Structure formats: C-alpha cells, structure tokens
C-alpha cells in the first residue's frame, strides 16, 4: 500500500490540470467550433484569439494595469510590514497583542462589505481609477498577511544577532539593511509572493475602484464577455494569459514556499 501512495498526488494533479487543459484547448478554437459542439481538442488551430489581445490596446493595457498595481501593492505592503513585524517580534509595547489581532481582523472583512464605501472614499481623496488607488486598497488584506508572515520569520532570528551588531557599532538602519534583511530574505520572498498572489487574484475591489485608466485585465474580460456576445475563445485566451504571470512567480519561489510556512509562525 505504501508503494501506491504516489497515486494520490498524481490523480490530484490530473484533476487540477483538467480545467486548465480545457481553457487552453478552448483558447485555440474558433468561436464557431466552440459553439458548434463538443470536441476534445481544437480541430482547426487558430491563434486569432491571442492576436486580438496582443494588438488591441484595450486588452493588453489591462495586463499592464494589473501588473503595475500588483507590483506597487507588493512593494508598499512589504515595505510598511517590515518595520512593524520587527517591532512585533522584538519589542513589547502598550497594546501590542490587541493590535496584532486587530490587524488580522481586517483579513476577515468581506470585500463585498467594503466595495461601496471604498468607491466613495477613493473618489474623495481623488485616487479613484488610479493604479496607486487599487494598490492602496489591496493593502487592506495584504498588509496584515505580510506582517503575520514576516513576524514569524523574524521571531526565528535570535536576538543575539541584533545585540552583537550594536556592540560592533552598527547603527539601527545599517544593521537592519545590511545584516537583518539578508538574514530573513526568504521570509521577504514568501511575504512578497503572497502579496503578489492575493493582489493578482482579487477582483471585486480592483473592478469597483477603476473605470478606464487602471482597469485590471480580469475586469476587461467580464466586460467584453457581455458586450461582444459570447466570445468564448477570446475569453479563454485572456484567461490563459492571466495564469502565466502567476506561474512564472511561483516557479521562482518554489523552494521557499514550503520552507516559508515551516519557519514562519504560521
């Protein structure tokens, strides 16, 4: 029985790949073929769906918009989370435990709850339909997560490291950037990965906070799907392209993910 245990993950991965295969297959079919009936693989291969996306600015700008605000969000989230996580792991201060739990509660706020007030708030501060606006809004759930992950990593670094550095005459900023950050760099990688991931996949806020200038690709898909009738091939091609950035990122951090969770306080 032990020798058959590899079957379980294998079947699971096959199950995971099935819908992805179907999406990829559909993206190479013509709309006529899709609506014409069932076929397991494209009878006539077409690259038209991809050609439309790469030549029409309203499509490919969606990708650029998404990548801009996701990157901004990752930088901002990890940037503000680093000192906070350091404080939570190193100092005791008034209300620290409550603060930590309060931060986590923001991860529990359904975006549907906040969608409407968010639009009004971001209109009021004139950040509606800007990349930085979406990036800031996504901080609602990414900053608590980044603090959580980084705090776990920092807790694993012995205090002696800090103390030795101070004895050696390091100032705090120099210690933090030269010694501390390199020590926890896999933690920074894991935190950045999760911020990227949750900002990339979130749509409700990104969609309601944008109109034209910063509209994410995933939202353009839904709009096109309804206005141009049922262009399933185009939709599938756009879907396939949204998987690629995530796949690239995950390939680079593959060795850190398991380790990150194991080391972190998570």
């Amino acid at each position: 029985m032990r020798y058959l245990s590899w079957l379980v993950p294998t079947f699971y991965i096959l199950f995971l790949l099935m819908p992805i295969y179907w999406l990829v297959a559909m993206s190479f079919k013509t709309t006529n073929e899709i609506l014409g009936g069932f076929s397991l693989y494209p009878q006539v291969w077409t690259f038209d769906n991809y050609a439309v996306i790469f030549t029409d600015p309203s499509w490919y700008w969606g990708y650029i918009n998404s990548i801009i605000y996701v990157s901004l969000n990752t930088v901002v989230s990890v940037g503000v989370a680093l000192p906070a996580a350091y404080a939570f792991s190193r100092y005791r201060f008034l209300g620290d435990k409550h603060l930590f739990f309060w931060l986590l509660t923001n991860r529990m706020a359904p975006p549907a709850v906040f969608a409407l007030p968010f639009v009004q708030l971001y209109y009021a501060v004139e950040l509606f339909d800007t990349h930085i606006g979406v990036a800031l809004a996504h901080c609602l759930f990414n900053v608590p997560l980044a603090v959580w992950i980084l705090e776990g990593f920092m807790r694993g670094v012995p205090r002696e490291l800090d103390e030795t550095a101070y004895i050696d005459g390091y100032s705090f900023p120099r210690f933090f950037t030269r010694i501390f950050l390199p020590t926890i760099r896999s933690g920074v990688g894991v935190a950045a990965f999760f911020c990227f991931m949750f900002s990339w996949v979130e749509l409700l806020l990104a969609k309601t906070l944008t109109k034209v200038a910063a509209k994410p690709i995933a939202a353009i898909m839904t709009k096109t799907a309804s206005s141009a009738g049922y262009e399933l091939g185009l939709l599938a091609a756009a879907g396939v392209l949204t998987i690629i950035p995530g796949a690239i990122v995950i390939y680079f951090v593959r060795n850190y993910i398991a380790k990150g969770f194991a080391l972190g306080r998570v």
Partner: protein
Amino acid sequence: MRRTNQIGWLFVAPVLLLVAFNALIPLMTVVNYSVQESFGDNVFFWSGLQWFEQLLNEDRFHAALGRQLMFTGIILAIELPLGVAIALCMPKKGPFVPVCLVLMALPLLIPWNVVGAMWNILALPEIGLLGYGLNAAGIDFNFTQSPVDAWITIVAMDVWHWTSLVVLLAFAGLSAIPDAYYQAARIDGASRWSVFRHIELPKMKRVLTIAVLLRFMDSFMIYTEISVLTGGGPGNATTLLSIDLVKKALGQFDLGPAAAMSLVYFLITLLVSWLFYTLMTRGEQ
C-alpha cells in the same frame, strides 16, 4: 524574551495609518448608513436600529445565511481531510517535490473570475468537458437548471481552487518534523495510524489552525467565483451571503439595509473566526 519598549509604536505607525485609512473610514461609513434612511440626493434621516430589526426577521437573509453556512461546512469537511491526505501521500524529498508544489499552487494564482469562467465553460452541458462528459456517460447534468447540479459544480470548483492551500500548509508542517521522530516510532513498532495521531497531527496543529482559519474566512466571503459561474442561480439556489449583499447594495441600491447586512455579516465572520482561533489554540501557552 522581548524587551518592553514603546518605540515599537513608531515602527507600527505606517501600518496603522494605512490599514486605518482602508479599514476604519469605510467601516464607519457603513455604520453611518446602517442607521439612516436615504432618499437619494444625499438626504438622510435617522432610522435607529430599524434596518437591523428588519434584516434579522427577514426570510431572505435567513435563507442566504443558511446556504452560506452549508457551503462553508461542506468546503471545510472536504478540503481539510483531503488536503492533509494528499500532503501525507506526497514524497518527502526528491526531484518531484518542487514539481508537485508548482503544479499544485497553480490554481491559487488564477484570478477569481477566471476561475469562475473556467468552470463555467468546463461544466456547460453541450460544450464543456465535464458537462458533456457526464451527460455522455448517461448522467443527467445541467448546472444552469438543477440546483443540486449547481451545488455540485460550485463545491467542485472550490475544492479544485483551494485544496492546494491546505496541501501546501500541511506539507510545510510535515517537512518540519525531524527524522529522529520517525526513527523512534519505528523502533517502538508504532502503527501508521499512531504515527499520524501522535507525531504528525500534533506537529501540524499550528499550520492546520491557519488552514482552518483561512479556509473559513475565504469560503465564507466567497463572491467572484460563484457570481461568474452561476450568478447565484438557478433561482436563488446558490445565492450565498455575499452575492445577496451585492444584489442588495449595488443592484437595488438600498444603502441602509445593505449596510446593516454588511455589519451583521462582518460580525458573524469575526465571531466564528475568533471561536475557531480560541478553540484550536486552547491549551497552547
């Protein structure tokens, strides 16, 4: 040991400012709406707790809440055991581990509406791989018509989408167990079950707490995937809380009732998360 030093506040200040801007202001807006009646053109009247009373006595709300609890219950009951089982069956080390992890993490990185759209075209009875396949195998399947089929589809979609998170967490917990523990168990002649019960499960407790919390929160707040896949239909069969809320807030523009519902929804999420958290971390310190 951590040192008492109020300078900690200075380090936390940027996070506080950012999250307070994003969380407190919208939350206060919602609280504000929830106790007022609006007549368009920014005319508001104080209405006290009227919306809350109305909501808590409303059949529509009870039904949506019931469906939401059922969905989350099913999801937790399937994904947690399945995720742990898959993690246990994975090879501990070797060239296949990174391959497995990358492939398994793939669904986690797909935008949520693409997940919904993917499962829509997969399950469509005439042209989808799954829908066509089931019908060809003689099973009558149509998620746009039958509530049961719609539920099977949304549960399958969520299992597909999120089980990997449980696998990744459980696998991380498992790989933190030193080999010496397994050797000791082998010398004592422990059975596979007792290795799981007395070594692996306690060591995974921490990561499993996270898995339960994250899976609870995200399945309780699910909106985009289901709204793209079924739109809450057929009828109201898959109208979960958040879908109902968005219908109320953006569809009907009933600001007061929608705000009251938002608050009740948020409080339920908070309360249940807190319960899970206290129950699962009990007896730690």
